[in-house]
């Protein structure tokens, strides 16, 4: 028996900001969930199950969101579960929710992800002291910067490419009312003059710390037929994992990412992603990850990803727009960031992305990664239902 097609019929986000002191965590997730229900014109009673994701527990000290948030999310008397996969969690949470529809376990599922970085400290959470180990590193930037240098060496990319990505994404964010950073006076010169934090990564090439939540209502064919607005249809979805460090690991282009993308393309019948996919919401927390993931996801040959960035292909009006919403570089409630990519991909094929809409976007990839480039989750959504 074939799988039930999965449709996204409701999407809600909070306005992402540095600190939402006016709401509790319950109030924050509620806001996103309420907006997703409103988009789908559904009520709490229409939801059969809730799947939630958030950042690793130490990041904000909430160990059991599924317990604390059940009443805020109308989950009483329904299945509610939590998904963990570090920074990719938003993507894998959506995929777990989608599997409940695809497997015909439920007809309509609410999925959401959140983080209040203002009430936590991710840098501390990533640098816990461990006995007998030499303390060396502080935060994610120092971990990823050597991989960026390795990419630059391998590809021969000019060292300005990272600044081009940051400049593009911050300008895209100006068209997205939900984005955290709205730098109206951004210039390429300002990006290139910003302080070097973890050389080769500059301040303006890093993501902000955000408070925010995102929610989606996923449903089956019957639910999509009742939906008041166009649905986004899932054409493929996959997750892959590998260890953070192992002999032979390719940290620049991890095999788990390549395999994950290949699985999604196989499900969606995509032979040439560069030609057949219209746009990508990619998880780029440090600007250089755009050219790196362009290669990892099969949009460019090895060593060639930076040429797409440099030639303007990934601009909002380019041939393959990347991070139309402004991306993680403009908005980073870590636990929610992966699902924001998935939701923004769905908004594009629904034609509901507003000012950052890519004209005629029919097939868009949502991508997330997490941990030490060890968890990958992706989905490809389309404007039409899958044919197979």
């Amino acid at each position, binding site marked *: 028996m074939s799988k039930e097609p999965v449709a996204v019929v409701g999407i809600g986000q909070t306005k992402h900001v540095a600190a939402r002191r*006016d709401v*509790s965590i319950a109030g924050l997730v509620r806001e996103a969930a309420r907006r997703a229900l409103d988009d789908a014109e559904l009520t709490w009673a229409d939801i059969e199950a809730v799947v939630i994701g958030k950042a690793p527990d130490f990041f904000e000290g909430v160990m059991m969101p599924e317990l604390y948030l059940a009443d805020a999310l*109308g989950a009483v008397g329904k299945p509610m579960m939590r998904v963990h996969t570090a920074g990719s969690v938003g993507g894998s949470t959506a995929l777990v929710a989608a599997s409940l529809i695809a497997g015909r376990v439920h007809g309509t599922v609410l999925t959401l992800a959140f983080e209040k970085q203002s009430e936590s400290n991710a840098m501390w959470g990533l640098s816990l002291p461990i006995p007998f180990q030499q303390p*060396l590193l502080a935060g994610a*930037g120092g971990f990823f910067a050597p991989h960026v*240098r390795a990419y630059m060496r391998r590809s021969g990319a000019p060292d300005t490419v990272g600044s081009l990505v940051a400049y593009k994404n911050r300008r895209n964010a100006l068209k997205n009312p939900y984005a955290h950073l709205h730098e109206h006076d951004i210039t390429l010169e300002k990006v290139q003059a910003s302080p070097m934090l*973890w*050389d080769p990564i500059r301040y303006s090439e890093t993501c902000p710390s955000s408070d925010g939540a995102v929610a989606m209502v996923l449903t089956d064919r019957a639910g999509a037929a009742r939906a008041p607005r166009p649905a986004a249809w899932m054409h493929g979805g996959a997750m892959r994992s590998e260890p953070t460090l192992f*002999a032979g690991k390719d940290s620049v282009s991890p095999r788990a990412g390549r395999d994950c993308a290949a699985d999604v393309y196989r499900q969606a019948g995509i032979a040439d992603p560069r030609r057949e996919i219209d746009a990508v919401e990619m998880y780029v927390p440090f600007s250089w990850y755009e050219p790196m993931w362009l290669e990892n996801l099969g949009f460019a040959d090895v060593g060639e990803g930076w040429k797409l960035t440099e030639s303007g292909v990934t601009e909002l009006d380019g041939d393959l727009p990347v991070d139309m919403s402004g991306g993680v570089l403009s908005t980073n409630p870590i636990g929610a960031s992966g699902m924001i990519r998935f939701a923004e991909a769905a908004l594009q094929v629904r034609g509901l992305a507003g000012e950052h809409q890519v004209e005629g976007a029919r097939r868009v990839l949502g991508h997330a990664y997490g941990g030490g480039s060890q968890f990958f989750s992706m989905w490809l959504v389309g404007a039409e239902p899958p044919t197979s």
Partner: protein
Amino acid sequence: MSAVLKAPVTVEFPFTRSLGPVQSAFLTGLRERVVLGVRTGDGRTLVPPVEYDPVTAEEIRDVVEVAPTGTVTTWAWNHAPRRGQPLAGPFAWVLVRLDGADTALLHALDAPGPDAVHTGMRVRVRWAEERTGAITDIACFEPYDGEAGQLTGGTGEFENPVGGIVAPARLDYTYSPGRAQTAYINALADRRTVGERCPSCRKVYVPPRGACPTCGVATEERVEVGPGGTVTTFCIVNIKAKNLDIEVPYVYAHIALDGADLALHGRIGGIPYDQVRMGLRVEPVWTEGGRYPDHYRPTGEPDGDYDMYKELL
């Protein structure tokens, strides 16, 4: 075989929490010696209050006062209080349904012993001397024989409402790095770097993990590597970390020790930070009593060839 290392580790952080309207009203009320709950659509009063109806999921904002007296609905005796608990001596954990409420609040009851506690007993709030807008503004409950407490009759709204709290979290663990890393750490004390070779893929892991993550088999064969190695990639850290006593800028590098099949991470010294490069040949620098090489410094050998280390980035 030497004993496996162990050490205590404490993870501690003062998380903050924004309260939102309902918890703000509740904690501000406690500061003013007033207990507030919320009324649901079907007329029940929930204390402690919640923001969303547990049955209908509707938003609740109807704040109501309840009495500072109530009835114990169940309890458990705590023989040996731990740090941070409400009372220093033995006490009862109690669920108290306050007069006017339909649900029970968890707190501590100050009682001489378990024989003095029973379900159905009457209790009242003992307020803390200093109140800040926190659950600890109720110091504890105490046995009480009188009438139900009086309501203040106020609106439940006060000047300077509490908007947020600090919620300190602390976890105490006993950490053990395990057999393989214990051997690695003990060898470092003799200024030797010892990894383990996978019997299946023959890769040498440094530090060793006791198992090969690719083949999924135990590793036992010990292999000394280094002391020399090659910088495979690096970054220059310009941010001073609060918990790290290293002057910036410094170079954080991936170093493939000779004979190892993946790079370990270390700091490069003895060379200006802006002259460090991929391929630089380095060796460890030990300090008296140090458990690890303090840093790695250039050996002066010619740089390693990229093709020799490109799989070890």
